[in-house]
């Protein structure tokens, strides 16, 4: 076993400031040209948050417009742009990079005991590509924006839309390479950078989840990249590859688009599942139930995720036989997600649970992801979906998995690792308040949308019949609560940077490698190369993780 004192978290941080990755170099250049994965992660955090804020502002406008049945606040054409841009910013510039590029970048090398990712320069390059893609997209939004929906469906996007489809398409195309490079880097690092003794089955599940995500990133993203490039060229040269009026095939576009974008929805949930595995095991102080099942279910999701894209096209004229097959495979792909959910709950069973902020978020995730996943099954059954497709039911479904799943997991992760990233503790009280508000606000916003959709309210319209107003008011009211819940962390986390209590190296008394270095970690991550002799999630008291004992010691020293 490890030397107990080395990992005991409650050594009081020394007074004189130690050299860590944040204060190791203060110039702008030392940030912009850094190869340190931790600094790159922080720069991603800032950029991704900016995009999240912008996407959120668009969302606010959508909900305000829908407060009343008539389309009064925005012109319908503007409304089209608003929901399109909301979707594009949120999906491509927030949700996809959020957990991998921020938490993954920061934690992966720490968790496997490496000095850095295998390809630090490629890592920096991916950040710059993200910036370039982002700037092109923002430029296009300033010039007039797009109104095609985030799915860029042809022939609308190729022929009828007079907006900046090409520029945004190129922005998204470029941005895709940023996630390809991130995925590439993770795969290589997980293969070759593990510390001695860190076998595959000792890896934290966060790492397994990122491995699966990376597979999807490098195999799926290029397909959508080339598809969107084709749309851009088609608009430019006016050739019928997707436009039926001149011999093209719009269904081909949908096939190519969803071949990526269904797997992409798993890019938007697998990393979150990784975070949840860490948080649930940690705050239940128990080894995760069925480690191998959780690990391989990630891989299964990545593989089967490539086989179900047709469930987005049930009503687009694909053959009935194809519909049946895709419907069946959709049921199959839900199984690994269910396995994970059962295992998380089983992990909590008889665990010694503490309700710190990250855990509150994680428990919220369990409930919301459950609803999101099950309604996915509704949508995957070939009869019911005809009634529900293109209604608010879909909108509610994917927000339950994307916001209720990924965003909440992201928040859980940010809170969980904040002490490690910044060396500061945030206010636990406000953390809990925000977790509750987000949960309540989220449900208030999106649950009514299931009902609205079931009653037949179509998505992507600025107006709706009078009798649907009550539920829409609920939804808009919920969105305000959700908005406040999401803004609160910005305030108290920034506050903690200046006034927060200094974080111990291992504030939660958790066994992962990332907790066995100082907070914040030094540039080279570990003073000495760690040698791993314990299994993952080993909460044994002999590892120095006896939390009662630690609290007693802390009480004495303070």
């Amino acid at each position: 076993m490890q030397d107990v004192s080395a990992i005991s978290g409650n050594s009081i941080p020394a007074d004189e400031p130690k050299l860590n990755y944040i204060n190791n170099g203060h110039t702008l250049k030392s940030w912009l040209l850094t190869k340190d994965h931790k600094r790159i992660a922080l720069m991603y955090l800032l950029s991704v948050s900016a995009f999240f804020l912008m996407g959120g502002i668009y969302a606010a406008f959508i909900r305000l417009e829908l407060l009343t049945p008539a389309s009064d606040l925005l012109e319908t054409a503007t409304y089209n742009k608003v929901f399109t841009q909301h979707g594009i910013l949120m999906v491509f510039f927030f949700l996809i990079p959020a957990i991998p590029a921020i938490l993954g970048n920061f934690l992966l090398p720490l968790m496997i005991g490496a000095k850095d990712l295998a390809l630090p320069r490629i890592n920096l390059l991916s950040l710059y590509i993200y910036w370039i893609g982002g700037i092109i997209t923002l430029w296009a939004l300033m010039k007039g924006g797009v109104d095609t929906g985030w799915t860029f469906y042809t022939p609308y996007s190729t022929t009828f839309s007079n907006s900046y489809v090409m520029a945004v398409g190129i922005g998204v195309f470029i941005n895709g390479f940023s996630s390809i490079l991130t995925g590439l880097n993770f795969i290589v690092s997980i293969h070759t950078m593990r510390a001695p003794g860190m076998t595959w089955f000792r890896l934290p599940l966060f790492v397994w989840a990122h491995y699966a995500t990376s597979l999807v990133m490098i195999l799926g993203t290029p397909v959508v990249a080339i598809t969107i490039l084709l749309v851009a060229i088609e608009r430019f040269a006016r050739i019928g590859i997707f436009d039926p009026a001149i011999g093209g095939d719009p269904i081909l576009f949908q096939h190519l688009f969803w071949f990526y974008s269904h797997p992409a929805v798993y890019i938007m949930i697998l990393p979150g599942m990784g975070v949840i595995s860490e948080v649930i095991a940690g705050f239940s102080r128990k080894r995760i139930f069925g480690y191998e099942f959780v690990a391989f279910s990630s891989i299964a999701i990545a593989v089967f995720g490539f086989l179900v894209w047709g469930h987005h096209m049930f009503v687009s004229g694909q053959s009935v036989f194809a519909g049946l097959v895709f419907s069946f495979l959709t049921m199959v792909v839900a199984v690994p997600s269910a396995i994970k959910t059962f295992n998380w709950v089983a992990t909590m069973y008889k665990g010694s649970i503490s309700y710190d902020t990250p855990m509150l978020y994680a428990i919220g995730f369990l409930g919301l992801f459950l609803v999101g996943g099950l309604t996915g099954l509704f949508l995957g059954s070939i009869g019911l979906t005809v009634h529900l497709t293109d209604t608010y039911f879909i909108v509610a479904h994917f927000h339950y998995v994307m916001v209720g799943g990924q965003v909440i997991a992201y928040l859980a992760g940010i809170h969980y690792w904040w002490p490690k990233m910044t060396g500061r503790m945030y206010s636990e009280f406000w953390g809990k308040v925000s977790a509750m508000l987000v949960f309540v606000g989220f449900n208030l916003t999106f649950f009514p949308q299931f009902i609205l959709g079931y009653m037949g309210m179509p998505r992507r319209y600025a107006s709706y019949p009078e009798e649907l107003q009550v539920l829409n008011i609920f939804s808009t009211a919920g969105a305000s609560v959700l908005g406040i819940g999401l803004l609160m962390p910005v305030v108290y986390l920034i506050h903690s940077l200046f006034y927060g209590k200094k974080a111990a190296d291992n504030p939660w008394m958790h066994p992962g490698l990332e907790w066995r270095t100082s907070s914040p970690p030094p540039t080279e991550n570990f003073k000495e190369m760690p040698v791993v002799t314990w299994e993952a999630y080993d909460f044994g008291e002999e590892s120095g993780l006896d939390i009662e004992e630690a609290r007693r010691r802390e009480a004495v020293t303070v």
Partner: protein
Amino acid sequence: MTAHGDTHEHHEPGLQHQFEDMNQQEESVSIAMWAFLAQEIMFFGGLFTAYLVFRWRFPMAFAAGSNHLDPFWGGLNTLVLIVSSLTMALTVYYAQKGNRTLQVAMIVLTMLFGSVFLGVKAIEYTDKYNHGLVPVTGWNKKVKEDTSAPHVTEQDCTQVGHGDGDDHYVNPKGEFQWKDCSLVKLAQEKNYLTADEKIGYFTNGEIDADKFRDKVRLFYFIYFVMTGLHALHMIIGLGVMLWLLWKAWIGTYGPKYYAPVEISGLYWHFVDIVWIFLFPLLYLLGRHFLH
């Protein structure tokens, strides 16, 4: 998995700070290149899918378009690339052997073949441009020069033969030029037409030259996107080779350290292989209709 164990400092050439030893670095770089190539396969895969879907639907238009590509140039380029793969492989071999002179010579040869390939592509592209076969509005020499030309052909499009470049048919839309529908006629007589073709080439039971032209144009669109992206990969490859040339010149590589040569080679071979698929699909399929 690589051992991190020993902590003493290494001073091997090219060892980067995040790695413990050369072994780990080389393994990483090689996995990275393979993963990158997997990514590339998917990238071209989208295009191959588009090609297959449309060729399946409109085989005659694709055959007609394909017959206007010159298999001589295509074949020559195939040969050139295969030889360049050999010289690339020899580059790796001589790097392993530590033979600087031959290594440099092989890199120069590889670059030479790469440039010949691009030169031939340039000849072909120019030829397409001169014949009005670039499917982009306004990129058409004939229309630019010959504004007085009649706007519709006098002849019935099924009567026109193959490959004569001097006809004066000008696409009324002023862009992509095509007037030869003889293959449609042939397929109609022999009952070859696919269901999509029966709708796609005809108006009121008559062969519609404009509709057929749009399908041929689609072939050229795919041709230009695929070969264009492939050429872009060649250009990047040449850039990589230039860098290798410099490194080899200053004697970086030897029996102990040649990983960069090896993975650049992987990339080069991959780009060659893509061409090995492009050549038959674009130049050869459908040639039997010529006879």
